[in-house]
Every structure is written in C-alpha cells, then in structure tokens.
C-alpha cells in the first residue's frame, strides 16, 4: 500500500527481470532477458517491454493498474518457424504465472547508480531496497499477439508479445 504517488513502472520491470533473468532455459540454453532493447542484440532474447498504467486508488492510498508486455524475440531462423519462440514463451509463462492464484514475488524499490547510468543503460545497477510499501495484488495473463516479418538479411524476425494485467498497491 502506497500513500505516496510513486513510479511503479521501473520497479515492476526490475521485479519481473529478477524473476526471469537466468531462469529462461530451454533445452540446455539459457536465453538472456533485457529491460531495454539491447544493442547489438542477440538472435534470441526476452525483453520486458511497454508498460501502460493508470492510478485507480482510494481516498486513502494509491493503486496502480495496467499492463506490461513480455516479448520473446527470435531472429535466428531463416523461415518463420515459431517453435523456439513459443517454447521460450512457455518457460516464461511458467516462471511468471505457474498457478491460477500466483503472483510473482516482486520486490519493489530500487536505487540507481548515477555513474553507471551515464555510460550504458545496460550497466545500470539496480539494488533492491526491499519492501518499498508496494504489493502486487494480481498479475494476470492478458492478450497475446505475435508477428513475423522477413528481415533484410533473409532471416525471419519473430515477435511473441505476451501481455499481463497487474494491480499494484
């Protein structure tokens, strides 16, 4: 419960990252997870993408509701075979929503190392402060979309977009 109006977006990204990073493993390969688009990008990875949210609280405290997109990116195939991407998506879903009532163990609150942030956004050091007075009330699978396009190099670009609805207070 938060009685102060705070930014929950990066805390949510960070929390999902902690839940996924190092754990998205399929047939012996652990696929990287990113909080922002990597440059250069590996051929196959997971990115915690766009968050949309609104504040919908009570007269006493703030409640944040919205959606977050988890995107499986696979540029490794020369044809639009989505098997690998869907298999990775299956692993991600198992990590984020293994049972009907589960919510991921989200730790909110972070500090940013201001020296590293100016060098490379991927080097941002995030240290969980713990608690932060926020709780993930629900984390629910929402809409799923996918698209495949042919890149200039002849490789297929596969994007599986898995949307989750969240309520945080």
């Amino acid at each position, binding site marked *: *419960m938060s009685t102060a109006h705070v930014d929950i977006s990066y805390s949510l990204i960070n929390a999902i990252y902690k839940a996924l990073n190092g754990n998205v493993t399929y047939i012996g390969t652990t696929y990287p997870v990113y909080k922002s688009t990597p440059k250069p990008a590996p051929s196959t990875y997971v990115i915690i993408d766009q968050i949309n949210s609104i504040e919908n*609280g*009570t*007269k*006493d*405290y703030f*409640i944040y509701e919205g959606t977050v997109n988890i995107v499986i990116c696979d540029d490794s195939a020369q044809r639009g075979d989505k098997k690998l991407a869907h298999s990775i998506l299956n692993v991600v879903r198992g990590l984020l929503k293994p049972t009907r009532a589960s919510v991921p163990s989200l730790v909110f609150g972070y500090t940013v190392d201001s020296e590293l942030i100016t060098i490379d956004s991927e080097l941002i050091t995030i240290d969980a402060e713990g608690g932060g007075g926020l709780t993930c*009330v*629900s984390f*629910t699978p929402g809409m799923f979309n996918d698209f495949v396009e042919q890149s200039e190099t002849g490789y297929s670009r596969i994007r599986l977009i898995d949307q989750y*609805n969240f*309520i945080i*207070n």
Partner: protein
Amino acid sequence: MAVINGSVYSVWNTTERLWSCKNASLKVDVDLPDVTTKEDAGWAKHIQGLRNWSIDFDGVYEDAGGSSVLMTPAEILASIIARTASAEVSFKPVTGTATTGWKGDATFKSITITGNMESGITFSGTIVGNDALEVIAIS
C-alpha cells in the same frame, strides 16, 4: 469560489473514519404526497411529506491494521450482524477548505463485499438515517 475536491469528504461513524473508500454519496429525500384534485386544472400538486437521508459508499477492501480511528468493511459487517444500535454518522471533509458537513443518527443497513477474479476485493454499502440530518460547520 473554488470547486471542492470530493476526495476530502469521508464517512465517519462517531470517531471512526471509513477506511479505503472510493466514493461516498449523501442522499437526502422528501416524500411529496400527491394532493391533486379535479380543481387543479390538470397540474399536479403535492404537500411536504416525510424526510429521509442515507449515505451510499464503496471502496477497496483493505485491512486497517486494527486502527481504532479507521472503520473497515469487516467492522461494518459485524455491526450489522450484531444489530448494533444506531449512532452518530457524519459526512464531512477530512482536510481542505470545505466548510460544511452533515451528521445525524444512523444505522448501517447493508454491506456487500465482492471478490472478483484477479482483482482487488471491493465493498459497497448503505447507511440509513434514523433521525434528523444536521449541518455541521467546519472551522
């Protein structure tokens, strides 16, 4: 003159404020018994009848940690089950520049607690006045 933000108005049960409320509405009504006769040239006429008032409220269910100054849906539910006698209820601002509130003896008539799938538990209820509604001047 400035518009008053509705967020500052709360429902109070004597000294306890309704916790985690989203919306609260004070309704005041008067019965208008019809006294139209054939002599009224086709216009309806009425007299002043009984007055009544009530407060509808809703919010998100949240434990108040046993606070003695905050009223929760669980306490309201227990009050209804126990058929607790009516007590002073107020509809007044907590903070801000609003200078008017209202109070009167009233009873909690109903509470609905709803647990929808994958969303926060919500509540809604009604308080019904048991006597006159008075204006409170907020200093």
